[in-house]
Every structure is written in structure tokens, then in C-alpha cells.
């Protein structure tokens, strides 16, 4: 079974703090993704990575950065947390291949509260 794990289920941080959210997958997937999920807005893509050290901006990258130093690990960084970044953060991974119906596998999510 594919496993995608996230470092914390719940996190409370103060405004201005630097926040690290970690995601690890154990299936040698090339692609990894970070989403944020808010009520009524669905899932919005923040960043994704298709290889080690490779990354691309998603739909809402402002205020976030990412790091992928190893294939299995993809980190989301909030350089200076703000209250409007209070949200559920979901990590996902998938195999690469445009012509194949690869699904994304999701982690359990991290509910981040910024006070």
C-alpha cells in the first residue's frame, strides 16, 4: 500500500513564525504536491514537484515556498505565517506519466492554525 505521511495532524503557530510542514511518501513517486483545503473552495494547488530539486508554482504560491532534497520528501515552508494561512494542508504524490491514469495518493492532512 502507498503511504503518504505528514509530520503533524494539528499545528498551532503564532503570526510571523516560520513554519515547516513535512511530507514523506514511500512508493518512489516522481510527483509530489501541496494543496490547501478551505470550506467552499475545495483543494487549491500551492506547489508541486516532479523530481528532486524541481518545483513549479501552483495556483496560490504566494507566501509559501517548498523544498525537495530527496525523492521521498517534500516540505512546505511558510516563511512568515499569517492568520490567513490558517487552513488544512494536504500533501499528495503520484507516479509520472501523462498517458497513464495515475491517481494521486493523499496524506492525512495537517490542520494549521495561525494565531
Amino acid at each position, binding site marked *: 500500500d502507498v503511504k503518504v505521511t505528514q509530520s503533524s495532524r494539528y499545528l498551532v503557530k503564532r503570526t510571523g513564525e516560520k513554519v515547516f510542514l513535512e511530507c514523506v511518501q514511500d512508493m518512489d513517486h516522481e510527483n509530489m504536491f501541496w494543496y490547501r483545503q478551505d470550506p467552499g473552495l475545495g*483543494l487549491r494547488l500551492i506547489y508541486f514537484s*516532479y523530481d528532486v530539486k524541481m518545483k513549479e508554482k501552483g495556483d496560490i504560491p504566494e507566501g509559501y515556498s517548498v523544498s525537495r532534497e530527496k525523492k521521498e520528501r517534500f516540505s512546505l515552508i511558510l516563511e512568515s505565517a499569517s492568520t490567513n494561512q490558517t487552513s488544512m494542508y494536504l500533501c499528495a504524490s*503520484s507516479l*509520472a506519466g501523462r498517458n497513464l*491514469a495515475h491517481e494521486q495518493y493523499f496524506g*492525512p492532512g495537517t490542520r494549521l492554525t495561525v494565531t
Partner: protein
Amino acid sequence: AQTVTQSQPEMSVQEAETVTLSCTYDTSESDYYLFWYKQPPSRQMILVIRQEAYKQQNATENRFSVNFQKAAKSFSLKISDSQLGDAAMYFCAYRSAEGLFVSGDKIIFGKGTRLHILP
């Protein structure tokens, strides 16, 4: 750009009944994949069913089936014999399959439909 629309933010169904969740999408591509994902309360999102656009036959997985209407750009999910464990947020999603390999294989999600099962 492709979009995915789920017009029903919430739905309820009696246990053991059948319910259909709607999804429409907009694309100019002819080759793509469609997915339904399920997110139970406080649990991980999992894939329910997938459909390849070039296949005319509707996908089926046990009690879950889709009605894929390519010309109408419609992809509804039917859940038969609803069970309490089906209560969840359901997301419709689209992924392109055309063109040169593009990094990321991004999936575009709808905003979701919350399904309640009434005992």
C-alpha cells in the same frame, strides 16, 4: 484552462437508497482522465473511481458507477445501496492526457459535494 464544477455543495440520502452526485467540466482537449475522490470526516482522501475519456464504457467499482457523457462534458457518480460509511466529501477531478509530457501531471479538482447518509 480546464475547470471542474460540482453544483451541489451538499446532498442527503437515506441509507440503502441510491444517490447521484453531479460533475461537469470544461476542456478543449479530447484525451483526459476523470476521477472521483472521497474524503471521509477526519480521514484521508482516497480514489473512488476513474474514467479514461477514450473509453466509452462507464467505469464501475462495486456500488459506485459513473455516467460519463463526453459530448455533454458530464461525469456523475452514482452510489447504490448507500451505507453510513459513504458519508464524506466527494471531489470530482480532471487530468489532461494530451500533448508532450508536462511536469507534474496536475489534477484539477472541483469544490466538492458533502454527502450525508440518513439512517
